[in-house]
């Protein structure tokens, strides 16, 4: 079972208490009525779906109820860092999840099948 550190509860808790809540750090346009359809689609629908290091919102729904942000490696499923909602994107500790390792994953993908 995955343990996720909740920055509000200040401890590791079981993944069963959490719910994924989409990509993080997507800023709502200042004046949403003024943007074009393409810009709206970019903001509202289009997500990066990165392989490797990704920033996501998570919610401690069966705990303190708070949304927070997490840096996660989508290949290993490892949570690299979590931090409170509203904070800017945080650097992740050196873990090996980077653009470079993502390339490695791509390179070995064929062998894994």
């Amino acid at each position, binding site marked *: 079972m995955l343990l996720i550190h909740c920055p*509000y*509860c200040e401890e590791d*808790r079981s993944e069963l208490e959490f719910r994924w809540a989409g990509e993080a750090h997507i800023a709502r346009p200042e004046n949403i009525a003024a943007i074009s359809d393409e810009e709206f689609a970019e903001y509202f629908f289009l997500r990066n779906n990165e392989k490797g290091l990704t920033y996501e919102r998570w919610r401690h729904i*069966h705990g*303190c109820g708070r949304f927070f942000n997490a840096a996660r490696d989508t290949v290993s499923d490892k949570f690299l860092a979590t931090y409170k909602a509203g904070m800017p994107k945080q650097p992740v500790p050196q873990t090996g999840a980077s653009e470079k390792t993502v390339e490695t994953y791509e390179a070995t993908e064929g062998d894994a099948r």
Partner: protein
Amino acid sequence: MVEMATRTLPLSGFHGGSSAVRIEAAPPAGRISLRARAEDVAALSGALGLDLPVKPKTSVSGSGRTALWLGPDEWLVVGDLNGGLMQAAANAGVLHSATDVSHRNTAILVSGPGAAAAINAGCPQDLSLKAFPVGACARTIFGKVEIVLLRTAEEAFRVEVWRSFSDYAFGLLAEGARDAAFSL
């Protein structure tokens, strides 16, 4: 002839447990779901007659009431049925949200040497005394339902659960209690 409507507890008549665990429905209680900002906590604490806890996973008792920290701005306050919790919160005179949830929840009292093991049958929390000491509380998950768990003594817990889920929670606790009896 006047017929009085009588309220039945959702778990009245339920029995369960084992040689290691006692499980029983808690008597009716008054409860509020309380939300407030940090700057209004002191006034609400004064009005409720206890210091609302601000540390995660902790509870505070006072004036016959217990306040459980659920989140950074959220508490479950449990007291006597008709114990005036709503009025007390209103008397604080500061911005807050209080909702009477006395009859939304019911509670199950779990006690005995296998109490933690019975709860762990469906709850992923670390219930060792180090991680979850007496007075610790948390909203968490029990099988498929959400509960609020409070440790009232080394071998005793109060499980707050929504009344429509209480049948399920009691049943799973009874299963856990039976398993706990084997492992002790």
